[in-house]
């Protein structure tokens, strides 16, 4: 059945790309997202009807495409985005998960949320305004999180008469900032999200721009799962020992370690070490309910059987013996502080890394990032949305890795031990690493 093959085939051949928007308030992020969905024919008839009805109720001339993602009552009332909206769409060649993030400084924690899982971040800049405070903050966040692809969208070019000079100046300004932040390979596109120029279709009103439309550019970005050569890491989530609860009699004695490959590839026969204990063994089998695998790549949830009866619990990490990280009980890290209450030196927190949660103390604030000069300055506290460097002491050793080398090995969150709230996004840093650019993690 040809029709069915055509519909089934995309999931076998396309790769998923996760996108997030960023940039200052009102630069046109939600409008751009709406435009992408609309012009790529990913808005269905009833959504379009609802959109037109809603826009008319608000006395607008045409459909306000931002209302496709600004779905909360408060967002519609205020005309701003408050929290991330996730939208899903696909084109002939690729599927996208799109996180439309807020621009307002008060909601930066939501933008960090959207950007943390992104393969590509779209940083919008209003052609009339150029780089603003929030543009700087969001680019710094993108650099810190090491979002693999950064695309600068110079938007609202309709309001500067599609002027090449203005576009070049803004593009240059952003490129300089990105370079100062250590972001390489920034791509830039001039758009009008409102009118649709260069979003899905190339515009003939920007004859001086001969690059791809934004969507064409996104379709061509290298996919996310290309990290096969990275070292194997596997945070253990569950010990599976069914005993009398086995689904079948033959599994009564089964013992396996369930988790998701966080980097590298799991293969039977690989020499591994269990961290933090340091006990060595071998992967005996990579199990799934559908059968054993010869290889489980990054991102796959599986259950490992080990060759020896070793002591493994939730929170342990199974890693290739050859290049296993050393568990540490002190660390340096960059933080995005995301809580209303300020952080001060000496604060007690919980630290979650992979599937492990340990008690920790933020022993020292090493410096806070100044967004104007992009260097660290001494600070006695981190306030909401501050970025800075800290020293940590852990109650139990963890195999923290340098975030620059391994996103999953270096990423952690800080948690309030009383309320359970998430306080900060953390990125571990090789201790004592001296950097050329001081703020670089």
């Amino acid at each position: 059945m040809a029709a069915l093959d055509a519909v089934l085939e995309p999931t076998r051949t396309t790769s998923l790309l996760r996108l997030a928007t960023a940039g200052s308030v009102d630069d046109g992020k939600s409008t751009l997202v709406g435009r992408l969905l609309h012009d790529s024919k990913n808005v269905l008839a009833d959504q379009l009807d609802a959109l037109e009805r809603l826009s008319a109720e608000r006395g607008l001339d045409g459909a306000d495409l931002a209302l496709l993602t600004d779905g909360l009552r408060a967002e519609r009332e205020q005309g701003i985005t408050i929290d991330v909206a996730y939208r899903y769409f696909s084109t002939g060649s690729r599927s996208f998960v799109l996180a439309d993030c807020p621009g307002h400084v008060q909601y930066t924690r939501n933008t960090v949320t959207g950007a943390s899982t992104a393969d590509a971040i779209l940083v919008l800049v209003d052609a009339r305004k150029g780089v603003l405070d929030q543009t700087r903050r969001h680019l710094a966040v993108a650099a810190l999180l090491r979002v693999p692809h950064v695309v600068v969208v110079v938007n609202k070019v309709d309001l500067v008469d599609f002027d090449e000079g203005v576009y070049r100046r803004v593009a240059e300004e952003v490129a300089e900032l990105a370079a100062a932040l250590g972001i390489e390979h920034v791509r830039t596109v001039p758009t009008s999200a409102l009118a649709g120029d260069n979003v899905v279709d190339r515009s003939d009103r920007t004859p001086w721009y001969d690059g791809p439309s934004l969507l064409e550019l996104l379709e061509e970005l290298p996919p996310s799962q290309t990290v096969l050569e990275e070292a194997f890491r596997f945070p253990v989530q569950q010990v599976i020992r069914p005993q009398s609860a086995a689904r079948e009699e033959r599994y009564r004695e089964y013992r396996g370690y369930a988790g998701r490959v966080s980097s590298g590839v799991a293969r039977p026969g690989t020499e591994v070490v269990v961290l933090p204990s340091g006990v060595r063994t071998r992967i005996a089998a990579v199990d799934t309910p559908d059968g054993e695998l010869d290889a489980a790549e990054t991102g796959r949830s599986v259950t490992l059987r080990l060759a020896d009866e070793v002591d493994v619990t939730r929170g342990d990490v199974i890693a290739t013996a050859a290049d296993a990280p050393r568990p540490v009980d002190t660390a340096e890290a960059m933080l995005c502080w995301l809580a209303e209450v300020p952080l001060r030196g000496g604060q007690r927190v919980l630290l979650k890394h992979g599937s492990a949660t340990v008690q920790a103390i933020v022993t020292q604030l090493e410096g806070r990032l100044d967004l104007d000069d992009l260097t660290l300055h001494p600070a006695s506290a981190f306030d909401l949305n501050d970025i800075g460097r800290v020293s940590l002491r852990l109650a139990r050793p963890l195999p923290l890795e340098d975030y620059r080398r391994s996103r999953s090995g270096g990423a952690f969150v800080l948690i309030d031990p009383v309320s359970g709230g998430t306080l900060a996004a953390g990125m571990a840093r090789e201790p004592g690493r001296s950097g050329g650019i001081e703020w670089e993690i």
Partner: protein
Amino acid sequence: MTTTTTHAPARFDQLDYLESEAIHSIREVVGELERPVILFSGGKDSVVLLHLAAKAFWPGRVPFPVLHVDTGHNFEEVLAFRDRTVERLGVRLEVASVQDYIDDGRLVERPDGTRNPLQTQPLLDAIAEHRFDAVFGGARRDEEKARAKERVVSLRDAFGAWDPRNQRPELWSIYNPRHRPGEHVRVFPLSNWTELDVWRYIEREGIELPPLYYAHERDVFARDGMWLAVTPYSLPRPGEEVVRRRVRYRTVGDASCTGAVLSDAATTAEVIVEVASTTLTERGATRADDRLSEAAMEDRKKEGYF
């Protein structure tokens, strides 16, 4: 003790990714909290969710119960399917009954007869009574614009309420389900799935669904631009003509407000083709309760709804 088949998948495709992401969130929350439960209605999303939970703990059983908030307006075949499924997987079924609440006066039937909004109270009471601290649901972000704003792990306060203006950051795939006593989290492992992903997965995994998801002949009548089935809970009003049509359901909920769509799709493969070429969203096509107002879902969710 060893499994028999060995296969090396050609590559890690989109469905593999979604499956692995969902299983990861399930294992993570179950690893952190004490008393999880899965909301299970027999609808396709909850069936997929339960299937994923079964895979997450294989070859063991799902180590926690499932909860059905029964509106009392169910299709018989869905209830039969529900019972068969929990039996097969060996999980315990808890039922919170909207009918009980109406019978003893704790809830009052709405003038429009719709019972979807009435589910919130029995749900929250069941959560409190069983002290459930992690409540898994099959909601997807692509269903509805308030749901598009949800975290995978989403905090509910002591009143079961969602505060969309003050959600917890959710970073990378490090889930934080911690909370104060009396609070709980809702967990949505299918957050990133679309309707089409769900159907493709059902096809790939050979998952059984209640038969009303496939085209069948049924007595229906038109109301609010939808086809409603003739059931004891949804009877035609004067002037609403009953006709026999070939239909199927895209969502399965309260029979009084869930519409069927005209369809000839009798197999999962045919449903996939149909869904891929549809011009309406599944809720737009089939849910009267979401048409009440622009923010109907947001308002219900703030009160503690699924």
